[in-house]
């Protein structure tokens, strides 16, 4: 009988005790908390001006690594969205603007300086992430497209840091530490959902195969 017991919980980490689950399945669950949970990060950057000392691609890379609090009930991944638009629609993209200029003294641009185009709950996990420093006269202006994605496609969407280990009593423990996109409990639930969906797909594929074989006879 599968049993899950909550051992420890705070805003960032959960520890659960798993019993009645094969090691391989428990490990799949751990991998899914990292790879298959949908989260939101900057996926596309439109550079309007960048006269900073940091090249466009380095700057874009730094921005893409900023975790955004993810409203995955409202937004979906562009490849799963039915809008079919290259730019995305209100269900698959959140637009942000970054505009900064240093005048008399050097400044640091922080994640808190990102401005959403419309009021949204999807915002940087922390306003204190330094993005770039500007010397007097330097300017950056860019448009950012925040999209839903999964860790298996790019590590910027990695939802959690998880480990599976055995306690001294031989109990199997799964520790999930959230990066900030989603609460840690939610990550576990989403990972289980993803696992269920994959198992369902496998079942259907197998059933289809057997069906095809029957028809062939």
């Amino acid at each position, binding site marked *: 009988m599968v049993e899950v017991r909550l051992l420890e919980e705070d805003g960032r980490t959960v520890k659960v005790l798993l019993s009645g689950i094969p090691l391989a399945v428990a490990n799949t669950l751990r991998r899914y908390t990292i790879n298959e949970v949908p989260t939101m990060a900057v996926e596309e950057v439109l550079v309007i001006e960048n006269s900073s000392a940091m090249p466009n691609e380095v700057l874009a890379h730094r921005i893409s690594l900023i975790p955004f609090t993810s409203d995955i009930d409202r937004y979906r991944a562009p490849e799963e969205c039915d809008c079919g638009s290259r730019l995305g629609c209100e269900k698959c993209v959140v637009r942000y603007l970054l505009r900064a200029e240093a005048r008399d003294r*050097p400044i640091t641009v922080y994640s808190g300086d990102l401005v959403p185009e419309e009021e949204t709950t999807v915002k940087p996990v922390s306003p204190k*992430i*330094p993005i*770039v420093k500007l010397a007097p006269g330097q*300017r950056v202006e860019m448009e950012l497209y925040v999209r839903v994605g999964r860790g298996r496609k790019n590590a910027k969407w990695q939802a959690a*840091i998880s480990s599976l280990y055995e306690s001294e009593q031989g109990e199997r423990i799964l520790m999930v530490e959230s990066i*900030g996109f989603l609460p840690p409990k939610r990550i576990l639930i989403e990972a289980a959902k993803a696992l269920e969906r994959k198992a369902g797909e496998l079942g259907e594929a197998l059933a289809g195969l057997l069906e095809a074989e029957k028809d062939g006879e």
Partner: protein
Amino acid sequence: MMFPVRCFTCGALIADKWDEYRERVDAGEEPGKVLDELGVRRYCCRRMFLSHYEVFDEVIEFHSLFGSREYSQR
């Protein structure tokens, strides 16, 4: 370059703690203790802080002194 946003090894967000770390260490506090208090527990993340040197500050200093402010694109 500038301090990395995420830990190279585990992917945890670390950049949001950088300013406070720098300030406190510059004020004379023990780096290890500061990291403990900031909740940076794993050694992969800790080395990111301990081994970082902010080269970008020198680039900014150079541009502040010799940057062609009046020749900017605008």
